[in-house]
């Protein structure tokens, strides 16, 4: 997952003012990309999308992903309103006899022909104080 938005903090702002869209996008990314428990001082911070990894790719899992994203943004970035959250499942079929990923152990690689790998494409339509925000995330499951 890549994002190019720069991190900016509200701490340096001399006066209380609303966060800019850019800042809000950065915070949403931070929430969605942080598995809960990764920050020991605030273990509940984050979005538990990592729990979907390894689960069967069903419609229910897709629904669950949508709920997790919406609730995490609602809790941690309340300034942002989730207008739409589309989660799509993209299947990455394994070509039998293809070259093996060097990072995978042989035993696991031998199982790949019998399964499928998928990616969740989440398209969020968000609305901040300054107008709409669009964010694309790709999370492997």
């Amino acid at each position, binding site marked *: 997952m890549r994002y190019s938005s720069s*991190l900016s903090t*509200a701490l340096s*702002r*001399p*006066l*209380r003012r609303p966060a800019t869209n850019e800042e809000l996008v950065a915070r949403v990314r931070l*929430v969605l990309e942080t598995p809960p428990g990764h*920050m020991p*001082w*605030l273990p509940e911070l984050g979005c538990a999308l990592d729990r979907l990894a390894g689960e069967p790719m069903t419609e229910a899992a897709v629904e669950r992903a949508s709920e997790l994203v919406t609730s995490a943004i609602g809790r941690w970035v309340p300034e942002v309103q989730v207008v739409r959250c589309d989660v799509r499942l993209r299947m990455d079929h394994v070509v039998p006899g293809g070259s093996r990923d060097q990072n995978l152990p042989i035993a696991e690689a031998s199982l790949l022909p019998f399964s499928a790998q998928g990616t969740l494409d989440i398209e969020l339509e968000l609305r901040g104080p300054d107008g709409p925000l669009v964010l694309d995330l790709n999370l492997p499951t």
Partner: protein
Amino acid sequence: MRLSPPPSLKLDRAALLQEVRERLSRRLPGGNVEPDPTDPGWLILEESAWIAETLSLRLDAWPFAALRQLLHLMGGQLRPAHPSLTVLVTQPGHSGTMTLPPDRPAPWRFFAGQTEVRDLVEFCPVEPSVSLRAAHIENLCLWKNGELWKLGGPTEEGIAALTASPSAPERAAVFDRERIEFTGVSTTPEDTFKRLEAAVKEIHARKVDWLHLEPERDENRIRLTAWIEPDQALRNAIPDGLTPGGDVEFEWAPVDESTWVPPVRVADRPDLPSEWRGQQPMAGRSEGTLRIPNLPAKLSIEGLLTRVAAPMPGHAAEAIWKTVAAIDGDLSRLSVRASRSVDVPDGEPSWPVAALRGGSWNTLVQRDRTTFVQVRLEDTGTGRLRVALVLPAMSKPPPVRAYAIDAAGVLLAAAQQVESAWSISLPDGATPPRLELIHALDVNVPPDARGVVLAIEGDIRGIWLNSFLVANAPVVTDGRSVAVRSSVPEPVSLLFQDLVSPEVVEQLSGQPLSPGVRQLLKRLPLAHFTLESTGERIKDYKGLAVDASLGELTLNAPDPSGELHNIQPGDSVTVHWYRRTQGVIADVESGAVAYVEHPPRVSPALVAVTNPVGAFYGQDRETEQQCMERLFTRGSAVPVLAADWEHAIRQHLGARAGGWVVRVWTHAERTLVPHALWPLPDADEDALELEAQLQTAGPDCILVALGPDQALLVEAELTWARHAISALVQQVRRRFPAIRDAIVTRFWPLTLRTDGTVEELLPCFDGHLLPGMAEDPQGREVQLPGALLLNAAVVQVLPKRRQLGAAV
């Protein structure tokens, strides 16, 4: 200097973030001081605070370790575990002396059984030699207000018969069947007997109703038996045998030749008015009568009066015959022999009869409120009888006299030798436990004695036979041979931790124990090793370092007194045995020690054992935290450096030593720097003695030089200061054992004669710094040596003296 525990270095995350908020609010007035938790900047700050808190938690452990190292540098050590002490009572199969071998473990071992909360606890005897007798306690009595009371005695046989506690006093009936017999031989027995009968009738006709006289004739032998019969007086007063109601008055006059009448009491019967039970009757309306007022009607008079438990005095017995003889002059010519017999009823003490037979009754009861204990010896022998008195804690042991009863049942009038062995305070079996003082005595017993009567001048809580002191210091038989590879200190781990070392015994002696117990503990053999090359014995870790807490022995390292047993490389040390302790777990309750073990042919063989009191004084080894709390408790300064000692000594000496110079020299200062002693160049007697003392003084000894800064300290003041400083050292030694002794010497104030400028602070002890001629109070003027003066210092600087005419 006082070292207090360092404050905790733990940093709190919440406090750090609060500080950030405060700083932010100062730097950015009106800024966002409660940022969103997802704000990247705030996340970094929170993470930093978390890292700081986590690191500080780990770093906080460092000062503890550093402090521990400092403790070791200073000589502060963890206090090892202390063995618990108690007193056992044992029943030997036969009399004998339990003697501890000095160089091998004692054959007798005593155990408290394993329970749900503790392991097997072993005790070993502490006393080098104890005489144990096959004996048991027969009874306890109390002599009070001229009357003998029974205090009970053991109710069971076996080892229970070796301990007894006084019960509620009960009237002794031992003298109820006391008889006085007057026997004489007459050439005219028939006539004499008639005269005697007439005299008896004459006496009975008088008011002497308490006295029963019975004349008898056996061929030419005439016998008159007299005894006291209180009921007879009542029978004479009330012939029908039942009280009429109201006052009862009866005759109670003395015989002619005496003023003595037998003291009596109203019986302690439930049908009698409570105010009269056990009381003495009132004097009657006429002389020679007694009266019991307001008695209910129709009470049987049998047993209404009881005799006070005391024998008839000898003069009263003599007066009976004198009175008989006075009635008839012919009887006075009859030569009679008076004898006393007492038929002891069952359950009554027999020793009063033995005392009456031996004519020592009056000696025994010479002091009021005396407790008597009768001990029966089951065999004869020469061993002494070990007795322990149980007394209230903090009480003073009462004087004890002991008398032997011979084979003929006669109590010997000569008191036997009684020696105090030791005293110890231990908790009894009550809940909550209270401390009792156990005072052990050794009673000398003649070889043919069959019994012993102890007369204890006062009350006791109990008495035990064959009692001896034991400690939870079981022997560990090791047998290993430790090869020494080099001459550097070499640690050897023994099989157990918590050893009993001389240091442990010394610390245990600091408990409130009697001098007798301290002496016994000091004499207890603690360990036995031998050097294989020479066969030399190493006793009680002498010349070896031992860490009692860790159970570690260090060869080629000096013991706490500085003595070093040099063991050459290639040699071996055989570790035969040593002692360990189980600490506070060995503070077992009373009655817990019930098992004894010894080899089959040991003498004396022990049949049973018990501990009538609980064990006490056991202590677990100190934890590091407890050690630091002991050494660094707030408000209790521990002198460590020489300057600390100077401060402490000044404080201890007080105003009497106001203005004195007090200088303390530690071992390092004395030995690492060249030093000299005043006076110079020729040392006086005191300086020579001081030099000799310093030669043998180890690192645990400080040198204190003190005195006024203008004159020499007088001898009386020096003696006082020595005592005061010795007391201070002993006091500090209990908490911080690095310094154990102090040499106190007189300070010499010197005057430096120089024309140069002196910038050194005075008093100055260093001769290097002040070259010139120094003068002491006795007028000696000497060139200051280039060394440290231990007992003298320059206290003032004056210009050089000018010789007359020098300026001309």
